[in-house]
C-alpha cells in the first residue's frame, strides 16, 4: 500500500535543510543528501523529500509537472486532462533505483508542458494562475493522482522513507541544482503517504517545514476565500498557498509577506517609528488570518532563492551559515558543518526574523 | 491627619456603617451579640432626606470646640494622632460637648447612661469599621491636609 490521503489534520515533527549557491552554480544532490542524512533521528522513515532548482536547463521555459499515480487508471485520466489543457512536450517516468528501504512507490511521472494557448486565452487567466488552478483541480478531483511539483526548471523528489533513502531512490546525485532543500519527516498520527511528504509545492514555490501550525484551521478557511483548496490536510500545503497568495497574486514584497506570516509582536510595533508601525499594523489588519501560529521553521524555495523563517517566538530550531558563495540553512548546526565544516558566518536567527538567500543580481523572491 | 469623609453621592443610607460601628465598639465584637446582649451606641449619625444621605461623625477638628468646652477634661485631642477622644470614666454626661460641637457629631448614649458617644476613628484597628464596611465606598479614610500642622 502506498498509503492514502489523510482526512484529518496531520501533525509532525521534522528536519529541514537547504543549500543555495548564490552565484547560480549548480551542484550535485549529494551534499544535501549528506546534510539531511545527518539528522536521521529527526525523521521516522515516514517521509523524506527534496526540491531542486536549476535541474532542467533544457526545459527551462516549460512547466515541469512531477506526478504520483496510484494506478494507471488515474494516470490515464490525468493524461487526458493535461492533453486537453496543455501541450505536453515530454512525458516520461522519473528514473529511480531499487532501494531496499523504499517500498511500494507509486507511479512516478514527469511532464514538461506548456498551457494550451487557446484554452489559456479563453480562461482569461495569467499563465501561472492557469497552471496553479489546474494543479489544484487535479489534486482535488482526480483520485489516485497527485501533483508533486509544477514549477519551471525545478522539481520535487519525495516519498515515504528516510530522506537519504529517498535521495538514493531518485538518484539525486545525478541532478545538479543551484538551490536544494530537503526534508525528513516524523509524522505522529498517519501512515506514510507519498503525497504527504515534503517539500510541498505550487508552481515555483516549494516549502519544507518543521513544525505544526496551530492556526491551520484559520489559514485554511482564509485561503478558501481566495479559491485555494486545501486538500492535503497539511500545514505545508497551507503555507505554500499563503505565500502564493501574497507573493504571486497580491504581488507583495517578500518582507511584507514575512510580516504577515510571522507578524511582529504588538509590543514590538509600539517601539517602531510611525511609518513602520503603520505598515505592520495594516498588514496585520488585512492579513491577520495569514498569521502562522504554532511552532515552525520553514524554508520557502523559489527560482530566485529561498526564505527561511521561524515562528515568532522560535519554538523550533533553525540555523543559518554562509561561506563565499553558498548559504546554508538547517534544523541543526551539525547538518551544516557536515557539508561545510568552516563556514564564514553561522548564526541562529531570532523568532520571526526572516533569512533571505538570493541569487546574485536578484532583488527579491 | 487621616479622617473619615463622606461622599454623599454614593451614600445609600443603608446605615451599615452604624451596624459595624456598634459591633466594633462592642465588647464581643460580634454583630448579633452586640445588638442583642450589649448596649452600644453607634458613633455615627446618618442623615437622610429624600435621595440624599450621608454619614457624619466627629471631624476631629483642629480647634476642637468640644475639647475646649469639656468641663471635666474627659475630652482630649491626642497631639500625635489628632484623634479627639474621651475618657468614659471622666465623662459625667453634662452634654457641654454636644453644645459645643458645630457638627452635632457627639451623641448621648442611647441606653440612658450619662456618657457621650463619639467617633474614635477605631483608633486601634487601622481602617475605621464604618469605612471598611461601607458597601458603596461612600466613606473614605484619607489625609486631605496639604501640610501637617504640628
Amino acid at each position: 500500500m502506498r498509503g492514502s490521503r489523510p482526512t484529518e489534520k496531520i501533525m509532525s515533527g521534522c528536519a529541514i535543510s537547504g543549500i543555495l549557491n548564490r552565484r547560480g552554480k549548480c551542484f550535485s544532490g549529494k551534499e544535501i543528501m549528506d546534510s539531511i542524512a545527518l539528522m536521521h533521528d529527526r525523521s521516522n522513515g515516514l517521509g523524506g523529500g527534496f526540491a531542486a532548482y536549476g535541474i532542467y536547463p533544457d526545459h527551462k521555459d516549460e512547466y515541469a509537472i512531477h506526478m504520483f499515480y496510484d494506478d494507471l487508471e488515474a494516470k490515464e485520466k490525468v493524461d487526458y486532462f493535461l492533453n486537453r489543457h496543455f501541450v505536453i512536450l515530454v512525458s516520461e517516468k522519473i528514473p529511480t533505483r531499487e532501494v531496499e528501504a523504499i517500498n511500494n512507490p507509486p507511479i512516478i511521472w514527469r511532464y514538461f508542458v506548456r498551457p494550451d494557448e487557446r484554452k489559456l486565452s479563453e480562461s482569461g487567466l495569467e499563465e501561472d494562475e492557469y497552471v496553479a488552478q489546474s494543479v489544484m483541480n487535479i489534486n482535488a478531483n482526480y483520485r489516485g493522482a497527485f501533483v508533486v511539483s509544477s514549477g519551471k526548471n525545478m522539481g520535487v523528489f519525495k516519498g515515504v522513507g528516510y530522506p537519504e533513502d529517498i535521495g538514493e531512490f531518485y538518484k539525486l546525485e545525478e541532478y545538479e541544482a543551484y538551490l536544494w532543500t530537503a526534508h525528513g519527516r516524523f509524522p505522529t498520527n498517519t501512515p506514510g503517504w507519498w503525497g504527504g511528504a515534503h517539500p510541498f509545492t505550487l508552481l515555483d514555490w516549494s516549502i519544507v517545514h518543521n513544525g505544526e501550525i496551530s492556526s491551520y484551521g484559520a489559514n485554511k478557511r482564509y485561503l478558501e476565500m481566495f479559491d485555494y483548496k486545501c486538500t492535503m490536510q497539511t500545514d505545508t500545503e497551507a503555507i505554500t498557498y499563503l505565500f502564493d497568495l501574497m507573493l504571486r497574486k497580491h504581488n507583495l514584497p517578500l518582507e511584507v509577506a514575512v510580516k504577515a506570516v510571522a507578524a511582529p509582536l504588538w509590543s514590538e510595533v509600539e517601539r517602531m517609528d510611525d511609518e513602520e508601525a503603520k505598515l505592520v499594523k495594516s498588514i496585520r489588519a488585512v492579513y491577520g488570518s495569514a498569521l502562522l501560529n504554532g511552532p515552525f521553521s520553514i524554508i520557502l524555495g523559489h527560482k530566485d532563492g529561498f526564505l527561511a523563517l521561524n515562528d515568532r517566538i522560535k519554538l523550533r530550531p533553525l540555523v543559518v551559515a554562509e561561506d563565499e558563495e553558498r548559504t546554508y540553512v538547517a534544523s541543526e548546526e551539525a547538518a551544516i558543518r557536515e557539508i561545510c565544516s568552516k563556514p564564514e558566518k553561522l548564526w541562529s536567527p531570532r523568532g520571526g526574523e526572516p533569512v533571505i538567500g538570493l541569487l546574485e543580481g536578484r532583488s527579491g523572491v | 491627619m487621616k479622617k473619615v469623609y463622606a461622599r454623599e453621592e454614593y451614600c445609600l443610607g443603608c446605615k451599615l456603617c452604624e451596624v459595624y460601628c456598634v459591633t466594633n465598639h462592642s465588647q464581643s465584637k460580634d454583630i448579633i451579640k452586640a445588638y442583642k446582649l450589649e448596649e452600644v451606641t453607634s458613633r455615627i449619625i446618618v442623615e437622610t432626606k429624600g435621595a440624599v444621605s450621608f454619614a457624619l461623625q466627629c471631624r476631629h477638628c483642629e480647634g476642637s470646640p468640644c475639647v475646649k468646652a469639656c468641663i471635666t477634661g474627659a475630652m482630649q485631642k491626642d497631639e500625635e494622632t489628632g484623634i479627639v477622644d474621651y475618657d468614659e470614666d471622666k465623662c459625667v454626661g453634662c452634654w457641654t460637648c454636644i453644645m459645643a460641637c458645630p457638627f452635632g457629631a457627639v451623641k448621648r448614649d442611647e441606653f440612658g447612661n450619662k456618657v457621650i458617644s463619639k467617633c474614635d476613628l477605631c483608633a486601634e484597628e487601622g481602617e475605621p469599621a464604618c469605612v471598611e464596611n461601607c458597601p458603596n465606598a461612600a466613606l473614605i479614610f484619607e489625609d486631605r491636609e496639604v501640610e501637617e500642622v504640628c
Partner: protein
Amino acid sequence: MDYVIIGNSAAGIGAVEGIRRVDREGKITIISDEEYSAYSRPLISYYLADKVTQEEMKYRPDEFYNQNNVDAKLGIKVTEVNEDDKKVLLEDDEEVTYDKLLVATGGAPFIPEMKGVNKENISNFIKLDDAKAIASDIKESEAEEVVILGAGLIGLKAAEALIKKGLKVTVVELADRVLSAILDKEAADLVQEHLEEAGINFILEDTIIEFLGDEKVTGVKLKSGQELDCDLAVVAVGVKPNVSIVKGTNVEVNRGLVVNDKLETNIDDIYAAGDVSEGYDMLHEMAGVIPIWPNAYNQGLVAGQNMAGSNESYREGFARNAIGFFDLSMITAGIINPATDEYEVLIDKVEEDKVYKKIVLKDGKIVGFIYLNDVDRAGILTGLIKEQKGVEDIKNQLLADDFGYIDFDKEWRTQKLAE
C-alpha cells in the same frame, strides 16, 4: 520669659496650654489660693451628691504641671500686683516677678445684705471647699432641711445634689421663674415642674431677709414674712468677677477686668481671662462678663498664646450652657428672651414630653436658642451662631426632629464636612 498666672481653673489651665503651644521653654508659675490641682468646678454638685470623687474631679492629670513645666504654687494667696516692678506679692511675702501676667481669678459669690448671713451652716456653692463644707455640715448637724437662695444654675445644681443626699429642699428665688438667665418663662415652667416632681419646693418672687438661729442657722425669714425652718442654707444668688486682686493697680475694672480681643487689659503685659474678665460678647456686640466654662478656657488659651507672642483674637464670646437636672437636659445659648421685635422666634413644644425648643433669629441669623429635653445636635446651632450663618432659607427645618447638615445647601455642607 516668665509667665505668671493667677488662678488655677479653666482659664488658668487654658493659658498654660496656650503658652505651651507657642513657647515650650519659658517659665510658668501658676498661683492659686485653692490647694487643689486644677479641678472641674461644675462638678462640685456631683461631688456633693457622691457621684464623683475628688480624684475624679481632676481637670487635668497629675502629671500636667510637670509635663508642662509649670511651677504650681497652690493654696497661697496673692496679696498684691505690682505693675511697675512687674511682680506679684504672695501672702507669705514671697515675690514672683513676671514678664507676662494673667489674672484668671474667676468669680466670687455675690452675697446680698442679709441679717445673720454669717451663721454656721450657711454656705456658698462655688468651690470644692464649699461642697466639702456643706457635706461636713450635713454630716455633723445631721441636717435634714435646706433652704437655697437662688434658682439659677448654681442654686439648682445644689438643690439637685441635696435632694440626692436625702434632704428636704426649698429654693427661694426673687424672680418669677427658675433659671431666668438661660430660659424663657415657658421653658422655666417645664423645668420647675420637673424639679418639683423630683421633690424640690419652690418659693418664687420672694427672698431671704434674715437667717434665724443662734450659732447655727435654724431657719430663714422671707421678705414676704414667711418663715422656713432649716438646718442648712445655701446662698447662690450669683457670681461677680473676683477683681479684688488688682485693687491698687491701674488695671481698668468695669464689672470685670476690661480686656480687648487679645485678652489684654489696659496695662502692658497684664492679661485677664475667664469669669474675672469682661471681654467681647459677640451677640450683644459689646463688652460683658460671660462666666461660663468653655468661654473661660478659650479666653485663657488665647491669652496664653498671646502672652507667648502670638497674635490671636477671641471674639466668639457669648453665653451658652449645657445643664441638666434629674435627667432633664437643656442646652441654651445667646439671646433667649429677645426684648424687641427685631427678632424672630421659632418655637416647638411637646408639653407631655417636656420638650421645648426655641430659636431666636435676627436678620436671618440665629442669635439664641433653647433646647429643652431634646438636646441632640444642639451644637449645630451653637456653630451657626458663632459663624453668623444666614439660615433664612432653611428656617422651616431648624426645629425639625431630623434637622441636620442635610438641610444646608450642598455647597456649604460639602465644604464644611470636607474640612
